[in-house]
């Protein structure tokens, strides 16, 4: 495999890892606060549709992004209502949200655009277009560094850079701010937070909302940057892979980056069977490669490669006790 192929592979790794990373960080906020969220996929899907739809109608991708975030946020609030306010089962709520998004997006898409559950193709300002970083053209001719900078680092949409910036930001919020301390505490022992005079409900709702915003960006990226428009079920289980990455990352921000990059790489390899064949000499089926993140997550979950210990109060609604 030559250098340029490698750069291309890594480039698509970054593209494919971005939505995973955003969704994974979204899940991280929610689960660190003790709210399990298997509805990441649904929130991404809803955001993907509404951002593409509004971008298509207004021609402004930023309005689209806002609409996507709003849609995802609405589902987050529904999850909060079920799992925080009414102390329902968080897993069941997540399942319901996934189906709700899967059904409603097609229903509304059909009603608005009559194109068989898709939005019109987005062009121009209705899409997030690649950004060329400064000096990319000048550096490109340089050997080694040139393609690295111009192809891999430069030339992504703004959302990609936002996603990568979100990693240190998340780390900083979690470990260096009052909010982060409280957020981690509420996922470990909500009673400690409650008796310290801090609202468990308020904290958990804010965590769920952050999750909604990040999922919204992830969904918007899918339909307005990675692709040009919404198609039915376009999240394609990415929410679940993000969930897998979250476990893989043991609920930590930097690990989340590496986990999603790894899963992004699997995705990139899936589209390049020639590269794998050249690398290991045998033909590997794309379908099997696609299943690799799931298999790896099961192995991690089984504790064969280091134990993943979830936040202690995760999944349990908080009930005051004497």
């Amino acid at each position, binding site marked *: 495999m030559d250098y340029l192929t490698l750069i291309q592979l890594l480039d698509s790794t970054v593209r494919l890892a971005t939505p995973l990373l955003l969704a994974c960080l979204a899940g991280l906020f929610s689960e660190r606060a003790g709210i399990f969220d298997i509805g990441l996929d649904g929130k991404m899907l809803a955001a993907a549709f509404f951002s593409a739809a509004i971008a298509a109608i207004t021609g402004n991708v930023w309005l689209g992004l806002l609409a996507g975030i709003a849609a995802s946020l609405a589902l987050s609030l529904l999850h909060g209502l079920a799992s925080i306010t009414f102390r329902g089962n968080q897993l069941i709520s997540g399942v319901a949200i996934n189906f709700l998004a899967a059904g409603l997006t097609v229903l509304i898409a059909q009603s608005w655009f009559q194109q068989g559950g898709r939005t019109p193709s987005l062009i121009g300002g209705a899409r997030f277009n690649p950004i060329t970083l400064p000096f990319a053209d000048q550096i490109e001719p340089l050997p080694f560094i040139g393609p690295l900078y111009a192809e891999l680092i430069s030339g992504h949409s703004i959302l990609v850079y936002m996603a990568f910036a979100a990693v240190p930001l998340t780390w900083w919020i979690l*470990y*260096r*701010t*009052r*909010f*982060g*301390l*409280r957020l*981690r*505490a509420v996922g*470990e*022992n909500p*009673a*400690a*937070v*409650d*008796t*310290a*005079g*801090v*609202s468990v409900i308020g904290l958990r709702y804010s965590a769920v909302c952050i999750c909604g915003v990040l999922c919204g960006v992830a969904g918007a990226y899918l339909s307005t940057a990675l692709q040009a428009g919404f198609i039915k079920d376009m999240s394609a289980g990415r929410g679940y892979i993000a969930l897998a990455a979250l476990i893989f990352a043991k609920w930590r921000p930097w690990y989340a980056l590496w986990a999603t990059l790894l899963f992004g790489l699997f995705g990139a390899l899936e589209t390049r069977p020639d590269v794998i064949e050249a690398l290991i000499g045998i033909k590997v089926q794309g379908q099997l490669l696609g299943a690799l993140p799931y298999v790896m997550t099961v192995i991690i979950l089984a504790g064969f490669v280091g134990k993943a210990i979830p936040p*202690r109060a995760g999944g349990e609604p908080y009930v*005051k006790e*004497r």
Partner: protein
Amino acid sequence: MERQATAAPAIELKGISKAFGPVQANKDISIRVMPGTIHGIIGENGAGKSTLMSILYGFYKADKGEIFISGKKTDIPDSQAAIAAGIGMVFQHFKLVENFTVLENIILGAEDGGLLKPSLSKARKSLLKLADDYGLRVDPDALIQDIGVGMQQRVEILKALYRQADILILDEPTGVLTPAEADQLFRILGRLKSEGKTIILITHKLREIMETTDTVSVMRRGEMTATVKTSETSPAQLAELMVGRKVLLRVDKDIAKPGEVILDIKGLRVVDDKGVERLRGIDLQVRAGEILGVAGVAGNGQSELLEVLGGYRIGTGSVRVNGQELDLTGKHSDGQSRRKHGIAHVPEDRQREGLIMDYHAWENTAFGYHKDPAYRSGILMNNAAIKADTVEKMERFDVRPPNPKLAAKSFSGGNQQKLVLAREIERNPDLLLIGQPTRGVDIGAIEFIHQQIVALRDQGKAILLVSVELEEILALSDRVAVMFDGQVMGTRDASATDEKELGLMMAGITEAQTPPMEA
């Protein structure tokens, strides 16, 4: 003294009432606590003490009544308001984040500004000062999960002091402490009092009330029955106020006639999931026709002892019942195989272990014995037979109401315990394991349960009794073994020992021996 009498009370509650569904937990309670005093609130389990304090700390909202803090009417809708009013509370079950440091736990909810760094360094400084002022030394950077319960309790007190609490409520603070640790706690409380803090101590232990408080209120069944000066009352009077009539602390029983050894434990060891050694070589024997009481502060291995004997915890060493070796590896044994060995087990926690709270009484009668051929017809369960059996057992053990179709959770604590006892004792076991037989049980049922245990002994059965209530141990046992830190500190004849000696042993001290190093 004069000044104190004229000053406004630090806390005054007027006519507090609180109901949970049909249960009236607090009924028209009024109380005045003067500043700079230690006020005890004593009552049996379930008397409503914790509910009252939870109302004061904003955990529950009272249905009726008013709260005055330093003479000012104060609304306490949540913990935040309680903290703002200068109230701090140390709960029975600590409210700490296990994987946070001491310092992080202390600032949680009382941070200065949005960033952690300044808060942490400020807290570190005040922690040093508090340590000097009150003798409350802790390692600020230790993780909670790595320090002992005594230390954790200290963190809870520091949390309250860091929030500048003037009023400190402690709910059953000595339940998890050794007598020595408890004494240390009371010295700290004395010091806090001398600095002008007001302390409310909730407990069901008379000794603590008599030794530490200035005034004491007695609660019974949600009502406040009396408030008296501690110096003007006696343990006997308080006990009577607590239960409403004179209590017989001694159970009528004849001298035991021990027979052959039924249970023979040699070198029993248990390592828990975290790799901590919970039992460190236990040797015990129980003979037919005797009650061996196992005393100790909760958490010193008694639960693990019962669990390994009950067949649901793995151990090493040797345990013989009726001369037959029990499997301790868990490979060929479980709760049911133990029953075939003639072992019956009334577990420490009837709600978590002894009963399925959502099962009907009749289903619970078969619990653990559901494979009994008498309960079977073909491949199906013979529900009619189980129900008939339940009706009989309920009658013999006076379970009220005698309705086998009621879910276990609908019975009172005492009647739940009777259901478990009926199930286990009626099996006519050779060995009865019984843990905390009267925890959360009303007085009437306590006497009944104690009589049943003694009656079983008199039938020549061996009984291993685990209880954290020394009084109960002394009243029932023929011999007493004291456990400390996974070991048996010693065994005494019940007639030849007293609370003082046992108390020392519970702290890990036997005569002519220095206390072992604290972990």
